[in-house]
């Protein structure tokens, strides 16, 4: 990497409407700023986080248009509709082209982005999306466990559950990384559940989002007779470092 390249770091407060964005020119920044970066890197500074640049995607996919409430010019699509593997696999998966085209054969076909999408479909080529949320290879994380626990067993809103780790996607176009996804950050929840009742995560005050979807409790009351008892979040090393 070119040491003098201008690296853009964006500092965002997720819980407030105001976003602070700072542009730092790495080649020339002062000692104070260096110290700031040092502090940022070694602390979980909540609610504000250091974030990687949202990578440029081959198509500028608008999460907001898809997930916003209908009264807010959105389509209120459930996250699990597109990321349908999240509830049954370790990875959430990127929706298949066939799924996109299921709607976009007819919907918004005049838009440039949809025409781009259609070209991929016609050529039979997958879209080379850039990975936004990545964990090191020595971390085993499973979406399935988390989604099953919070959504299907506790009946929390899907948007809120995904939002714990992914932020409020209805405020984004292409996906951005809004949580550090570091070990200390994961443990904020995982330690809490060692002693206290299995409940919503305590840091939820920080991570709360204004979910627009309905809690599954309303539509799908938990079948307590058959549901597996809720497990406390594990904090043994091997649970994530297999």
């Amino acid at each position, binding site marked *: 990497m070119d040491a003098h390249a201008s690296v853009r770091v964006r500092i965002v407060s997720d819980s407030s409407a105001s976003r602070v964005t700072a542009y730092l020119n*790495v*080649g020339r920044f002062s000692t104070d700023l260096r110290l700031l970066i040092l502090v940022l*890197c070694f602390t979980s500074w909540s609610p504000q986080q250091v974030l990687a640049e949202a*990578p*440029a995607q081959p198509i500028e996919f608008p999460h907001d248009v898809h997930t916003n409430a209908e009264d807010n010019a959105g389509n209120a699509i459930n996250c699990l509709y597109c990321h349908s593997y999240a509830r049954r696999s*370790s*990875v959430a998966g990127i929706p*298949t082209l066939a799924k996109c085209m299921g709607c976009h054969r007819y919907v918004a076909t005049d838009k440039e982005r949809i025409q781009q999408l259609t070209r991929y479909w016609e050529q039979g080529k997958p879209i080379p999306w850039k*990975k936004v949320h990545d964990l090191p290879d020595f971390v085993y994380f499973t979406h399935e466990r988390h989604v099953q626990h919070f959504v299907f067993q506790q009946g929390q809103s899907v948007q809120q559950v995904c939002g714990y780790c992914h932020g409020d996607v209805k405020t984004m176009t292409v996906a951005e990384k809004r949580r550090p996804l*570091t070990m200390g950050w994961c443990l904020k929840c995982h330690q809490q559940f060692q002693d206290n009742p299995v409940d919503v995560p305590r840091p939820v005050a920080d991570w709360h989002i204004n979910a627009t979807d309905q809690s599954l409790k309303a539509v799908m009351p938990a079948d307590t007779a058959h549901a597996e008892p809720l497990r406390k979040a594990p904090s043994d090393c091997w649970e994530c470092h297999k």
Partner: protein
Amino acid sequence: MSFDPVNRRTFLKLMGVSGSGLFLTLQGCGNASLEEGRETVMSYIDPEDFVIPGEEVWYATTCHQCPAACGLHARVREGRVRKLEGNPASPINHGRLCAMGQAGLQLHYHPDRIPQPLARIDNRLQPVSWDQAKTRLHKILAKAAENPQRFALLSGEVGGHLEKLMDALVQTIGGPSRYVYEPLSQKIWHSATQSALGITSPRLQLAQAQMVLSFGADFLGPWQSAVHFAAEYGRFRTEPRGSLIQVEPRMSLTGANADWWLPIRPQTEAWLALGLAHLLASENKAIALPDAISQALAQYDIDSVSKITDLPTDSIRRLASALRTRTPSLILAGGPADGQVDGSQMVLASWLLNYLLGNLDKTITHAGDSPFAELETRIGSTAALQKLSEHMPALDTLFIYQSNPVYSAPDFLQLAAGLEKVRNTVVFASTLDETAELADLVIPLRSSLEEWGSRVPAYSPDQGLLQLQQPVMQALYPQHVASGDLLLQLLTQLDKAYQQWPDFYAYVRTDLMKYREQARPDKQPNPWKLPAVMTPPTYKPVMLEQAFSTDQLDEAFWEHTVAAGLLQLPTQQRSLRMQPQVPTIKPVTADQNFPFTLIPFPQLGLYDGRHANLSWLQEMPDQITTIVWDSWAEIHPETAARLKVKTGDIVEIRSTHGSIKVKIFEFNGIHPEAVAIPMGQGHSRGRYAAGVGVNPVKILAPVFERDTGELALYATRVQINPTREQDSLVKLAGSDSQHKRRLVRTINIKAPDFSHPEGSAS
């Protein structure tokens, strides 16, 4: 390699001055993960219902790493095969897999796989397109059909439907010449067993035996069906614990596990077997032998047998008495015992012993006739290769399918020179090996994890077994034509009748459909077992009982067979009959110029050399010496002292047909008149194989087994000439001496006592 000396202080200083350096360091060790925005996540375009990213799917198929044909389960994720395990439903390996089987994955992803066909242009192999290669192949075939006598096809042991198509190709062309070559051939064993029992492959039930006496058969190593016999051995050793006695000139893996290991003089095993037969026959009058046999056995009296075999008379008597006490037993012969001039006689002698001890129908059974007779694997031999080398000057066209004789055959066959004279040599191979390198046209093959196939194993505990092979992922090189499809295309060129099958898949499926009725659950002696793992996982197995009343009968049967990875049909167990034969063995005359017998032994790893290019197996230590990535010559410390050499010294091993240079490894588990060198190294091609070690097979002398004409692999006499060179051997184990520290207490026993009805300890 050298590094600029940057000490800690300088490093810190550098970091201090460079702000960007600091920033980068913190990025590296801190919170940001490594690949965000740099890695691409590909989505599926239109996936199969059962494909879930991150979720594994297991497919049943068959291992192709050795002729045993164990059942496999392949773990596939995101369309890529990632791990192989044994198929628990297979009666061969019961869910286990050997190291060679595991390494099948490495072969599949091997960087040496040929990405596109190669043709000899300007005397150099050059990449050509598939269209060009096919045109050339079809032309060569058309010419061959005009003059069938000048065409031949050589392959390894293939078996199943591919074998059927290869036979059909040779027949359609009209030539008589189909050669099957297997460097570690069981031809001698099969043919002698056929002559003794009337069947080639009786079922050997180790688990039922109280005692196993094995003449050189390394059944825990690569003899016949490694994983199967390892499982049988496990049961044999559970209570009541069976005893194992191994007689061989060099300690094999099985020998190392034996209760009693007898180092016999090389090339004399048959004498011991007949000496034991004489002792047992003269004491057991219940089993009457024809006079001619009794008379012939009389010459194998204990004193002369002891002298010839270099075993004390006391040991031979103990052996006979152990066999008498612990019945039923099982007598086996293989490896250095049957790779002799009198190899067939040795195998016959082992059957005679089994007969005298009443083991037939107890530990050796006839599992019935195979319902898949036309798909059975044809046993390969070196004799076939020798015939081919004689035929070569009269050949215009030679197809070589998955066989590397230029590496694995002895030099005296002069195969490379013979191949040069054949006008069109077409080699079907997956990597560019020593044989492919001499070809005029190289057709790259798919891996066995990428194509359909079937296999009726040469040794199977269940005669009604067919192992099915299916592609577990899409071909890494999608243009590569599957072997079966290519054969069908070639056949269609000669005979339009083959057009009825659009591809090899259709051919296999249509053919197997004829067994559907036999596979009905109500016709099974044991009800149909559902496979342990279904493929895909969400697939609900159609219960055959219900399916028989529906139109989907074929589909149900096929889905079931593919999901199970095998087809098991009922067979009728029969009783064995044996006609003892008059033994005729001749003593081996010693040649003072060549005082040692060469034992080129195969290991579970590199096998006959076909796996030398798999680094996993090179890295796997030899089970006895723990040496890796090398060749060595095992000699007895007494011999070493006599020759004034020691471990690590390089010696020249010379036969009448060549010489090799190799490092000495002093080893107590070998007879002083033998020198043993592992097979498998000494390649000139392959990124992991080339330049490592030597190939002992190259210097074998043309000594052949008397009855079958098969190469006697363990009958070459050699001399050992010290050189002044030295080198070190890389091995995992340190020293095998305790250096007087008494870490492990040991006691010497003269010979174990097998007189207890159970247990062999003494």
